[in-house]
């Protein structure tokens, strides 16, 4: 072997060593990196692997049902509605999507352009995309029969709130909706999340925590396309929401609705012995079911923007001058303060001059000499003008008004209650920058002017007379029961809101005077029911427009203290927006007759046969 060959061989060996070295360095470096990934940091990657492949799925619960006091059929329940979803990965050809859009538009009665916007494009994604919710069962069954026309379409059941009585209980029950940001911020700690459905008003809102139940949770192992790969593992069973029983009586509610007959206003019936509200009607109403359908948001907006404000529960959320019904309170003050003997007469000539202003009575020719009983029965303004102006201080009126609950919350278990207003000297100076004058007192004495009350507050005044002093907190919720067994879980006990602490004598006198309103006073032609003895007071509030007057009536029955039947307080208010037909006492008459005879409105009409009813029936009959 020559020296050059040896040199050549040495050089070649050296190249092999370099090449082998490079290969070894790479293999070693990779192994070191693998060691750090698979042994040192393995846990980090394992966590990531679990996060990607485990996806949780919410099992929706059922919201609690709501019953009326008879616990028969629920007045708020759930119906199965369906959400339509499309799996983009299952759209096999571009034509499948066109087929789907065309057929969906036909079955949902929507334009193809609307559907086109919602249907996802074809992709590799196997995560279903929710495109329509609140699809009724009929549509689903139609789709199921023709499933080949709807490629990639599937559906999931979605419990949806349903109010079988529609409008009838809307103001009491309220409605539910998706939680909003503000609500979530406040309620975050109480088990709500982004997807919660929450009661927006009414009992749905006040008892949301009881009704909502708790969603369950299941874990799925999902593959990269979102396809579920195994039976879901249920981590948490859903807890059903509890059932709620209300104090309302669906018969009385229906009766009151019919009696009000679509007029804007309210009708309220409560049991003064317990504060249980038996019916609570506010017109106009709305049908909460219409918020959940396909045009839900449009319907909601339309009702929200309606000029007659259907969302307002006028029983507790609107306050108006009590008009002549306030004379009940004036009589109480007169007796308590011993300002006048009930039999002392005041001469009514049809008007009275206070300072340089003339205040008129409702009868232009005057009532002649009237005592307290006659004044309340005939609703003589002049008697109360002079009582307030000559014998009482305005402070007496303010104080007693507050003592009997005016200007204060009643504490009813519904949201959004307003206080109304009891004026005072300070209030007037602050608001109008003028002092309280005699004319203000005179106006106040007949319930006109600044004072405003809600129908519920007025009912409490009547309840106080009926009870002889104490007033129970008005409430709607009676019991909370187990959702399946209907076993009693919690019961609402009557609580005393306030005790007006009136003299026995005062109560007796005011009761008698209120009875005279029915027997020989303003209401004697309309309160015709022979079934129960009624004591009450009418009211007609001026609005400035001679043709437009609020009509009030508040009453309790039975007047007869020996009557063993449960007493009720009925307060009806018909807004001035309606054509004037002095409807409040008439409606109350029908409601009272219906309650004590267990009749429907139609049966009441048959039974009582008011003059106008006979006329109309005869006309109809002859035609």
């Amino acid at each position, binding site marked *: 072997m020559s020296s050059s060959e040896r040199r050549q061989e040495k*050089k*070649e060996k050296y*190249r*092999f060593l*370099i*090449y*082998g070295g490079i*290969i070894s360095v*790479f*293999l070693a470096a*990779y*192994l070191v*990196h*693998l*060691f750090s*990934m*698979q*042994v040192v*940091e*393995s846990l*980090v*990657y*394992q966590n*990531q*692997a679990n996060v*990607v*492949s485990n996806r949780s799925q919410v099992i929706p619960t059922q919201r609690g049902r709501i019953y009326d006091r008879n616990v028969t059929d629920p007045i708020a329940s759930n119906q199965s509605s369906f959400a339509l979803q499309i799996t983009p990965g299952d759209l096999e050809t571009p034509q499948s999507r066109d087929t789907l859009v065309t057929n969906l538009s036909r079955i949902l009665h929507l334009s193809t352009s609307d559907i086109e916007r919602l249907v996802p494009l074809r992709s590799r994604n196997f995560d279903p995309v929710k495109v329509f919710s609140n699809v009724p069962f009929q549509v689903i069954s139609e789709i199921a029969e023709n499933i080949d026309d709807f490629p990639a379409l599937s559906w999931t059941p979605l419990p949806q709130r349903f109010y079988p009585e529609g409008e009838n209980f809307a103001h009491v029950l309220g409605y539910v909706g998706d939680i909003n940001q503000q609500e979530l911020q406040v309620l975050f700690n109480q088990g709500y999340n982004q997807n919660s459905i929450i009661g927006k008003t009414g009992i749905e809102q006040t008892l949301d925590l009881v009704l909502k139940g708790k969603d369950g949770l299941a874990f799925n*192992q*999902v*593959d*990269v*396309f979102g396809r579920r*790969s*195994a039976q879901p593992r249920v981590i948490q069973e859903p807890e059903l929401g509890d059932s709620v029983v209300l104090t309302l009586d669906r018969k009385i509610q229906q009766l009151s609705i019919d009696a009000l007959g679509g007029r804007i206003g309210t009708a309220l019936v409560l049991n003064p012995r317990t504060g249980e509200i038996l019916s609570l009607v506010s017109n106009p109403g709305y049908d909460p079911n219409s918020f959940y359908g396909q045009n839900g948001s449009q319907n909601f907006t339309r009702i929200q923007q309606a000029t007659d404000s259907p969302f307002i529960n006028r029983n507790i959320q609107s306050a108006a001058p009590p008009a002549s019904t306030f004379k009940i309170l004036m009589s109480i003050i007169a007796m308590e303060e011993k300002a006048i003997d009930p039999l002392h007469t005041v001469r009514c000539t049809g008007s009275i001059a206070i300072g340089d202003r003339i205040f008129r009575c409702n009868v232009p020719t005057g009532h002649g000499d009237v005592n307290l009983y006659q004044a309340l029965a005939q609703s003589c303004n002049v008697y109360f003008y002079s009582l307030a102006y000559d014998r009482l201080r305005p402070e007496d009126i303010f104080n007693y008004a507050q003592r009997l609950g005016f200007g204060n919350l009643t504490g009813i278990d519904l949201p959004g209650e307003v206080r109304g207003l009891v004026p005072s000297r300070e209030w007037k100076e602050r608001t109008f920058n003028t002092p309280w004058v005699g004319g203000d007192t005179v106006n106040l004495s007949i319930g006109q002017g600044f004072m405003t009350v809600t129908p519920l507050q007025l009912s409490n005044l009547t309840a106080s007379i009926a009870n002889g002093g104490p007033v129970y907190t008005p409430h709607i919720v009676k019991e909370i029961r187990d959702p399946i067994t209907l076993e009693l879980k919690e019961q609402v006990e009557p609580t005393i809101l306030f005790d007006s602490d009136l003299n026995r004598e005062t109560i007796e006198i005011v009761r008698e005077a209120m009875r005279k309103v029915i027997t020989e006073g303003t209401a004697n032609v309309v309160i015709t029911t022979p079934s129960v003895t009624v004591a009450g007071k009418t009211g007609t509030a001026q609005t400035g427009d001679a043709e437009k007057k609020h009509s009030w009536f508040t009453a309790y029955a039975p007047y007869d203290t020996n009557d063993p039947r449960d007493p009720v307080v009925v307060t009806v208010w018909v807004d001035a927006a309606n054509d004037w037909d002095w409807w409040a006492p008439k409606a109350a008459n029908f409601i009272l007759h219906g309650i004590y005879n267990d009749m429907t409105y139609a049966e009441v009409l048959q039974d009582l046969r008011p003059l106008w009813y006979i006329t109309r029936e005869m006309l109809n009959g002859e035609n």
Partner: protein
Amino acid sequence: MAKTKLIFSVDVILILTATLLILIGILFIYSSGLTSDGTQTSTEYIRQIVWAILGFVLLFLVTLVKTDWLHDLSVYLFLFSLILIAFTVRFGRVVNGARSWIGIGELGIQPSEFAKIAFVLAFAKWLETHETTVQTVQGLLPPFFLFLVPPVGLILLQPDLGTALVFMPTFIVMLFFAGAQPRHLGYITLSGLLVGVFSALPIWAERIAQIDIPILSIFTEVTPMILFGSLIGVLALLSIIGLITLKRPIFYWLMYFFSLIGISFGGSFLLRRVIREYQIMRLIVFLDPEIDRLGSGWHIIQSTIAVGSGGLQGKGFLQGTQSQLQYLPEQSTDFIFSILSEELGFIGAIVLFALYAILLYRIIRVAYQAKEGFSTYTAIGISSIFFFHFVINIGMTIGLMPITGIPLLLVSYGGSHLWASLVALGIVLNLGLNKYRY
């Protein structure tokens, strides 16, 4: 010498190693086709078995042909493979974004896989007679334009960047063994790397690091670009003048350095004209895959999760969640190592590395023992093909290399590269049998 004795002296270890790698491949191709509920959705593993059996027939045929045939036919094989690639570029079928597949109906091949082998044979034959010329700079130009540019150019037209890239290190390694100057090879290697770095740098700064480096304006804005280019040009020119007039070695290295920078700088503009920004982005996203989690970063993230979550012992064969739940894309081809490491863990990876190390050792051993240039260069070329496929593929699955989509030879699913690999090993066995020929 009796033919039987010849056959008994065949390198059994090499055949065993290759067989083991192919078997491991088939097991994990089977695993990749399995869904979480245990159903096999793919027939890939059956096809791979068929291809492997046919591939071994090819291997033995190639082992037994006369070595002279390989030597003499190499140029024609190379030309034929180039024609096939050209034909593919025009008429081929698109597979994974590259027009690289040609065939009738279900039967077909990727000619570029076989072109690698033909390239090695033809280049080895050429090197045998040019061992002295390649030691000079001028001597490097003919092989560059004769052997490297045609296949790489054609394959880039498909365009299949990954396959094209494998030619370059093979070219360098073969030249290195043929006696080319390391500083020349270093120049080629460095300029190639720098072109890549310069092309990616502005996009890296803007999209990944999200920092504003003022100096990078030389790549993006016209005035700094011209200023910098001129500066480098003048400096390189001065170095040349200095070298000619003063003949000091320092000027040689200055010229080496400045021309390297200048050529790479110019080359990076050419490259950025050819490759779109999103393509560059896909290549460098491995530096921070979170930038594009659901896009180009997805493969890297899912693959590293699979590998890392495998741990020391793995989740067990067929038990990998990343693969069975199909989070891993292209699991049977490019990302087969991810399944292997997920299901067999670090221990499985060590076994695979060991098998590959043995395989490479046995191939290089043939090169070392060979008595003439053709055998040495061919075996070295083939070893480098296996090695660079290994480095790029595994590096990609563990987040150290850009995603270029080249297979792990012998293990990944795919007929063409399996056959090409077995033919290549057949050539090595053939050369091994003839080591005492001269």
